[in-house]
């Protein structure tokens, strides 16, 4: 009888340990996630950021230079085979110029794309602001990402953009985001994978690597709260 009880207790323990992860409260996951990425206070101190990164394609380097100023604008330059393309987003408008795509002059973003891009100008990680921005979130249990069972959380914004976050339960870092965007009658889905998180001197924690499925973009230089010339956010041609 005693043995049976022990066996029962043992089974119960196994059961409890197996369901423990799934019972994780969504608020608790988000709290731990925010703590893992450096905490809200540190993120609120972020005013600007300049990064340089590179991506390999067939052995060749593609260089990215990005600048973001909180609530003002972002600019990304891509240097590819001797050519430079760029995109700019400000509250007033968004433009891009990619000569390799046949563009001969700067083209304005569509209203739908701009609306979504402006949402990101606060430079704050999504879970820090989703409530203020009126986004809803839902927890969909665990799902495998590259061999790691992750928390799966879907966030939907006012523009019906859906982003699904996969958070590693060991580190509470986001290791994948899948976004579904409906724009101009089309629905597009794309995923980005994140890794190599590093804590910056300012206390925030950032992924130094992101992968879009075909190549990895590695940050080679990062500067926070630097002075930025506003002219950089003016489309030049």
């Amino acid at each position, binding site marked *: 009888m005693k*043995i049976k009880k022990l066996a029962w207790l*043992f089974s119960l323990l196994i059961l409890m340990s197996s369901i423990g992860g799934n019972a994780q409260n969504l608020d608790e996951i988000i709290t731990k996630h925010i703590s893992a990425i450096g905490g809200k206070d540190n993120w609120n101190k972020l005013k600007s950021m300049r990064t340089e990164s590179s991506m390999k394609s067939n*052995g060749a380097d593609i260089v990215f230079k990005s600048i973001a100023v909180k609530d003002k604008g972002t600019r990304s330059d891509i240097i590819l085979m001797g050519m430079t393309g760029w995109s700019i987003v400000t509250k007033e408008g968004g433009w891009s110029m990619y*000569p390799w795509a046949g563009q*001969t002059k700067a083209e304005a973003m569509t209203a739908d794309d701009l609306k979504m891009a402006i949402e990101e100008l606060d430079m704050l990680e999504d879970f820090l602001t989703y409530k203020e921005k009126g986004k809803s979130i839902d927890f969909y249990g665990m799902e495998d990402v590259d061999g*790691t069972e992750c928390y799966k959380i879907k966030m939907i914004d006012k523009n019906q953009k859906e982003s699904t976050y996969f958070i*590693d339960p060991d580190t509470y870092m986001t290791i994948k985001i899948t976004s579904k965007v409906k724009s101009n009658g089309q629905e597009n889905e794309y995923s980005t994978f994140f890794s190599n*998180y590093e804590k910056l001197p300012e206390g925030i924690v950032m992924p130094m690597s992101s*992968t879009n499925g075909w*190549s990895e973009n590695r940050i080679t230089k990062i500067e926070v709260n630097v002075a930025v010339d506003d002219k950089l956010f003016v489309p030049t041609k």
Partner: protein
Amino acid sequence: MKKYLYLVSLFTTYNLLAQSPVNSAMFGTMETRQLGPGTMSGRITAIEGVLNDEGKTIYVGTGGGGVWKSSNAGTSYKSVFDKHCQSIGAIAINQKNPAIVYVGSGESNMRNSVSIGDGMYKSTDGGDNWKKIGLDSSEHISRIIIHPNNPDVIYVAVPGALWSDSKHRGVYKSSNGGQSWEKIFYIDDKTGCAELLMDPSNPDIMFASMWQFRRQPFSFNSGGNGSGLYKSVDGGKTWREIKNGLPAKPFGRIAMNLAPSDPKQMLAIVESKQSGLYISSDGGETWKSQSATMNTCARPFYFSTIVVDPKDSKRVYRPAFQFAYSSDGGYSFTEASSEGGWVHSDMHALWINPVHTNMMYLGTDGGVYTSIDKGVTWRFNHALPVGQFYHVAFDMQEPYNVYGGLQDNGSWKAPSAAPGGIGNGNWTRVGGGDGFWTIPDVDGKTAYSEYQGGNMVRVELSTGKMENIQPQKTSQEEKLRWNWNTPIVTGAKNPKNLYVGAQYLYKSNDQGRNWKRISGDLTTNDKNKQKQEESGGLSEDNTSAENHCTIFNIAESPLDENTIWVGTDDGNLQFTLDGGKTWTNVSMNAAKCGIAKQAWVSSIEPSHFDKNTVYVSFENHMYGDHQTYVAKSIDMGKTFTRLNHKIFTGFAHKIKEDLVNKELLFLGTEMGLFATLDGGINWFRMKNNIPEYVLARDIQIHPKTHDLIVASHGRGIFILDDIRTIRNLNKDIWDKDVYVFQTPDIILNNGKLGWGGPEVSGGWWAGNPSDHPSFDYFFKQRLNSGKVTLEVYDDKEKLVQSIPGTIRRGINKVSWNLRSTPPRVAEGAKKMDGAGFTAPMVLPGKYTLKLIVNDKVYTSTFNCVHDTANKDLPLEQRKLVYEKAMAIQQLYNKVNKSIDTINYYQSLLKSDSVAYAKRKNAIAFFTDLEKQKGELMGITKTSIFADEKRLREKVSELYSTFCYMESAPNQTQLESITDLENDYSKISAEVIKVITKHLPKNPEIKEKKRLD
């Protein structure tokens, strides 16, 4: 003591399971190619569309391929149910909030091969995520209705279990969006609900068609006292049987519907001794018999759909054996036009866009069709890869072909790789009817295919001509009994041996021209199970689907052609060691390890390593038993050990032993594909871009390519390319933090196949396998911080290329393009220059791979070898091509250096733009430089449609030609190198001249080093 051992065993088992790190996630980077195809598609069971979306967004439920969603009216589809049961019975959309979708699993077209569901599912985000919400034991669901005014109220029609008594049948209701269920109408454990209707103008009025039915492995019965038509006027609280005007009972299955625009107008096709079409004009209270064609009333158990136009009560559609429509409320029917081509027969689902009722989607045994003219003509949707294969085979050609037969879609052949990938057009039909075993002959010119009930043909592959080769009975023999899915196989040891099985086993050595019977009756020959002519119930239905006491599997030992195993559909497992002279029945020995006695022998796998070892899978679902039965014998069937695991789901179809690693086994069941790396102790579910509950009917391993080939009954063919990494994985490896697998020799070429042109729109397409082996390594854990880089070095320790690595747990696979690092491209062009992504292919030789994981380096070596198969490029020519490509790369670098020089001086001149504008000398210098730059590369034309070919573009083009060259260069190509070098010499001299001329006149520019 016993109790102590029990506890120890419990702990040990738990620890083993807990500690075994092998699972599907480990192989996640190895993804199957889903070959589909969409060519013939497969059985569709349910179609529902979103109302407020112009009919563009639809959900399609399938017999064995899950749920697919299209947001573009069928141009493309996306599978949205890959993590769940693949057999679908019904779908319902909450039209007030279309993000909420319900799926009832378990098809209700009760054919012999119908699969089984595991309950209701709900999505609240348009199909991205699903949650199971109950009715787990329902097995089959035929209809879901959402209350139009209160979407939390849901009704579900459950026919219930097909093969056994069950209390889990009838009409169910949930009042809280599926959180809990109440059974609101139940007849008995043999009778379920086949159809459920709700009056949209008064949702309290409902109709239920109750159906008594049962299959046994050897018969089918549709009909009984439980069947009847019922009406409720209080939302399902009470039900009243309706008989007035209907034929005499007993009934079988009743298909029925009402006109949404005038719900008192109803139609019912009632299966009875006088099966027919009945019409009611008073909300089902009274009915009138209406004459109808065979097509309207045929096969009630399989064709149960009748639909009335949402706006026009007179327009009635009857998708059945053919598609028929009526414009007079069902008094007369016309069959759809054949203009535009054949529409697949056997129809089960129809969704009409209620807003534009000329637009509709039809679900058949062969996919989805769309009509925009009220069903008169139809257009096939080519992008639904939901074919229901029974078996798969391969040949030894390069690339090899796969062969297989499908439910109601004949037999087909397709290459495993093709220029540009495998599209619908790459599939060739090699047999008709319902296709099953389809086997290539070793001669490379011939295949064998069959259709239901043992009708088999020899196919000449070059012409498609077929010759019937079925053995016939002699006057001394009983009537031959052929299974619906009759085995026809070639020998694993001697592929010239061709076998087929009725109740006897036959062998041919001349491609079926002559047969020799090599056994007596190997079945139980139970006469009580051989009354198929009485099968069907109220409607006779005897299409060979219930044939029984037949041979179901044949397997020649890969080690000895005289050792042949045979399994039957009535539980017998027999073998011969002398080519058929004597037979031994070991089924009772298998039963001793817990296998159900009468279970079908679903596959036999004689070992490749030991003649006395055999693996056998059994399945007993036709007796209501869904257990996964797999057994192994190591003593020629004297004793069996059952292989079992808690992770198994679904009854077993196929057990397959690897050809190299005897500990590696694969198991296909009705609900999943599983693998073990320790001979069957620990198993894991394969999730490698394959649905988690895939109906895995057959598994093969190609001996040359090491590909795992899986035939699914609902998702077509899957190929997991080159499983050697799985094969080589063992405890020594998975105990290490990092392990680098030996890279196989890499044959140097641009791949075996060409581009093939753009993919055809609207079809299904599967990619080709990788052209070359990848660099494979194993991580015990995901690398959470730091980075991974792979570096390739040549035998002189010179870095060839640096490649970013992946960081996932388990197997990582990183591709290398076999080339060195491309040249740098100087800035200033208006268009992209392809040379910046191009480098020559490396030469044959020994190379070193360094896997750099943060500060640790793991070094291994591998060989790149010359492609001797390419006679156009002998080794000496390969070396010449490489040498010339490198020479052009040097020229390219020189051109870019000159451009850099010009850019440098131009930037100095313009460093102070205000001063520059005032200095004539500076402007003259800049202008002359710009002129030379314009000779070196195109700098004026910005449009991609306006070519501007200058020196760099010419060098770049020639460089690319040499980099991708796979034959000896021609003379003009070689001469072009010299010509371009000469051109460069002239322009570079001009550049120096310009600088020399202008520099002294521009003393502001101090920097002169660039001249050197």
